[in-house]
């Protein structure tokens, strides 16, 4: 948290030094601040801030990609006459612990077309999702969620 504040201050210093308080310049300041933290980070911070910021951006881009790929898939099936998919409710064993991580995973699953989170078991070991495409088997659905989203979320949060 402290290092995040430091990052913001670095960006503000950049806008002050260049004397342009515009949105674009603040973004440039943040990028330059990130480079500074990449260099001096290991000396002042043990939480791996720069790595987590990088992973968070990767997670975001991965999510956008998933959103597009599966939206197109659903759109195709909605527009095509007849239904060719197999749907069902699948239990996903959870490796992520903690409320924030599970909420994030469940929300991202709901936001991606083709999957919808329905329920978390009381002991937080399983997430039950409704999937639109389980043509390749239940295990494939589990594998996709675990190797894709859950893996990314764990890398950001740990």
């Amino acid at each position: 948290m402290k290092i995040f504040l430091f990052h913001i201050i670095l960006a503000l210093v950049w806008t002050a030094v260049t004397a342009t308080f515009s949105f674009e310049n603040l973004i440039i300041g943040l990028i330059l601040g990130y480079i500074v933290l990449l260099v001096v980070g290991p000396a002042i911070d043990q939480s791996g801030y720069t790595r987590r910021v990088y992973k968070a951006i990767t997670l975001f881009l991965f999510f956008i990609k998933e959103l597009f790929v599966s939206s197109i898939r659903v759109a195709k099936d909605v527009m095509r006459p007849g239904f060719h998919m197999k749907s069902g409710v699948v239990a996903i064993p959870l490796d992520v612990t903690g409320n924030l991580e599970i909420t994030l995973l469940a929300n991202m699953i709901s936001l991606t077309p083709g999957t919808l989170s329905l329920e978390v078991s009381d002991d937080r070991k399983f997430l039950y999702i409704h999937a639109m495409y389980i043509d390749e088997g239940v295990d494939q659905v589990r594998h996709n969620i675990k190797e894709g989203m859950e893996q990314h979320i764990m890398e950001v949060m740990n």
Partner: protein
Amino acid sequence: MPASCSNGQKRRGIVLEVIAGILLITGGFFVFVAAVGILRLPDILMRMHASTKAGTLGAGLILLAVAFTYAEIGIISRVIAAIAFILMTAPVAAHTIGRAAYQSGITFWKGTIVDELQDYYHRSSKINTKSDKIPDID
């Protein structure tokens, strides 16, 4: 574009307009697909799939088109805020509706090949009594 604009500014305006146009058309297409999906898909959970995506991709793309059209800080920050709030609230609504639908015992369409949640509700009687009890409204 006013006539006083320089050539470079004019070109930038045209590029922004084309990007905004593409975003609008794609966004509109996904909202349209969502509407058709709600009408066409065979059971309620499948319809939820279609409807949440109108909120995310469709509305998100249309909002982005607004940001590109005006290309000024006040509008862009509001667009980012709106997209962030949509991304936070849409899945919660979808999850709640889907869960309520499942617990109220909807019938699945014939293409449903697996239901692993059924076992869970059956196993833990605690949840079963919780969800089966419908509160008296009157």
